[in-house]
């Protein structure tokens, strides 16, 4: 009796298991797949937070949209965001965590060139696909990395000739004293000279300089027609204040590659910022339906306190969608198939317009815009459609050298 009952129990358990097997195997398989993981490394504290916040908002928005449309390959996308607190050490640490512990499928992140160069080799070593979505000085040539922000050939090349047409041929360059400022100043000099102008002097400022009195006197003594600025960050915003306070803003006009990155149009008075020229791959004020929908979606979620939505946020949003296009076309999230899919020249219609991957440089061909400040906001003056990353293309060819991982200092 006991024996037979035991046998009965065993048989029925086995039968039950056998019956349940297909669904069990299926769910185990799905659990192994789990969600697709998208890592994000952005500064949400410290001096760079005002820049990092809208970038993360844009990535969250893109992920939400993809998930609402059923995810990718039938799987949900999970966003894993680490706050790097404007600290390069944390970048390296979290990059390792994302690649090794969280085993994410792709990473979007890094704001400054310094942070990018800290984490890029880590992702190459651990074979994790990496997107860098910031405008920068150009020159990164790495098959594992895609760069969706603008480079000087796309923006500075438009800004400098326009400023010289408006104001004259003699330029004075001021820039932040680190690699972005140094390299951008070289590009400014090149475009000034290409247009038959002359650079009177180039001054670099450490990021903690707060008193610009002597420099303002130097600039006046040189008597330039215009000022080209690549000043960066909170302390350098003071330059524009001191420049306007000395009554020079209407005497010597300013064109800048950085004005607006920490929301200067809204923080300075109209009298201090009116008429400053800038050029980027995106402006929040852009009046296309795609742009307005993008801005509204972010502001609806995060309220009136949302920092200015600049090119960096738009490029982050477009970066996530470009990667999604790559995954869709590859039919997998495996790194190499996605890279190869992106290299077929995939494109995405984003808030800034059409964005197309350039297979040779892993940069993008995209629209750029020229604008001036009016009433504490940007007024978009001109659209330059489909600008190719020509500067990086001059030094980088990933089709010919797929194993290249150099950050070229482009010789100008």
């Amino acid at each position, binding site marked *: 009796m006991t024996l037979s009952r035991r046998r009965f129990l065993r048989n029925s358990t086995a039968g039950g298991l056998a019956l349940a097997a297909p669904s069990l195997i299926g769910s185990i398989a799905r659990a192994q797949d789990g969600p697709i993981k998208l890592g994000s490394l952005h500064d949400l*504290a*410290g*001096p760079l*937070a*005002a820049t990092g*916040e809208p970038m993360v908002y844009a990535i969250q928005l893109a992920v939400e949209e993809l998930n609402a449309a059923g995810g990718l390959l039938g799987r949900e996308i999970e966003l894993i965001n680490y706050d790097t607190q404007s600290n390069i050490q944390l970048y390296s640490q979290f990059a390792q965590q994302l690649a090794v512990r969280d085993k994410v499928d792709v990473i979007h992140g890094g704001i400054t060139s310094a942070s990018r160069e800290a984490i890029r080799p880590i992702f190459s070593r651990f074979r994790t696909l990496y997107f860098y979505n910031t405008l920068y000085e150009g020159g990164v040539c790495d098959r594992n990395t895609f760069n969706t922000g603008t480079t000087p050939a796309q923006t500075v090349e438009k800004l400098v000739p326009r400023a010289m047409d408006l104001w004259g041929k003699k330029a004075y360059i001021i820039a932040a*004293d680190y690699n972005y400022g140094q390299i951008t100043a070289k590009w400014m000099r090149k475009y000034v000279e290409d247009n038959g102008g002359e650079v009177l002097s180039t*001054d*670099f*400022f*450490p990021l*903690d*300089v*707060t*008193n610009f*009195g*002597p*420099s*303002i*006197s*130097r600039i*006046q*003594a040189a008597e330039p027609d215009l000022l080209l600025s690549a000043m960066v*960050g*909170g*302390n*350098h*915003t*003071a330059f524009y*204040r*001191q420049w*306007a*306070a*000395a*009554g*020079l803003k209407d*005497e010597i006009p300013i064109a800048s590659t950085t004005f607006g990155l*920490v*929301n*200067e149009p*809204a*923080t*300075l*008075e109209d*009298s*201090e910022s009116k008429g400053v020229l800038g050029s980027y791959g995106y402006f929040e004020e852009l009046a296309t339906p795609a742009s307005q929908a993008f801005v509204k979606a972010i502001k609806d979620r995060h309220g009136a*306190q949302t*920092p200015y939505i600049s090119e960096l946020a738009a490029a982050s949003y477009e970066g996530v969608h470009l990667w999604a296009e790559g995954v869709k076309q590859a039919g997998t999230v495996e790194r190499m198939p996605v890279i190869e899919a992106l290299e077929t020249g995939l494109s995405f219609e984003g808030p800034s317009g059409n964005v197309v991957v350039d297979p040779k440089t892993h940069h993008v061909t995209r629209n750029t815009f020229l604008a001036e400040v009016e009433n504490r906001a940007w007024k978009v003056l001109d659209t330059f459609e489909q600008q190719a990353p020509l500067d990086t293309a001059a030094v980088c060819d990933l089709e010919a050298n797929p194993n290249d991982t150099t950050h070229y200092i482009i010789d100008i």
Partner: protein
Amino acid sequence: MDLAIIVGLDVISGIASLVLISAGLAVIFGMMKIINLAHGEFLMLGAYATVLSVSAGVNIWIAMLIIAPVFVGLVGVIVERCLIQFLYGRLVDTMLATWGLSLVIVGGTTMIFGNTIVGVASPLGGFTVGAFQSSLYTPFLALMAVLLMTAVWAVMRFTRAGLIARAVMQNPEMAATLGVNPARVYMATFGAGAAMSGLAGGLLAPVAGVVPTMGAAFIAKAFITVVGGGTSVLWGLITASGLFGFINQIAAFLTTPVFGEVILFIAAVALIRMLPTGISGKFFKGRL
């Protein structure tokens, strides 16, 4: 000639801003021998008090000259009562505590106001010297620095509070046996030093980008000025500001801002090597 006048004004403004940003630190260090690492954050709080008051509709002069120092002075008294008073005579501990305090203030300000740069426009216009232009705010800052130093001198020299303060500064034990309560003097001193920092922050708000982390840009210069000047509050501060302000501005004008900073710090290192107790330790011993 025009250029010489403008550069001269730059030098004066450089000296004046050193006096202003260092005064609060000098008072607290000179009288209490406390190294206040939250000094930069006191400046920042003064700047925020000014910006917020102006955006709430307060007149900018009232905001800069009254609200900023009063608010930061109160913060200083609270900090002294809650933190500093338990750590007198323990130099390293006060440094750690005030450093922690500075992190708390930066974090708290960031949480409340975010990281966006705010500010107010400079209230005075520009003026012309020949072919050159400069801001009227520059001579105004110099005037404020002179007024502040005169006020410190007058209080120390002519009032009973100043006499007691000097007595405690020279010998707290002796002052205590004569019926003075050094703890209360210290509290008032810390509050006064904080108020001076608040005033400096308020005055800098129109010419700086105001963010929670702005204190970091000022603290190094404030420290070399105070250390270079030595423990004499008034003469040490004035001579060190004069020397460093002159070197910094002239070097920045003749070379570039990068070398201006480098030359300034080399000069500071050389000075401290030659005069370990600061300028006042050598030339103004026992003076205010």
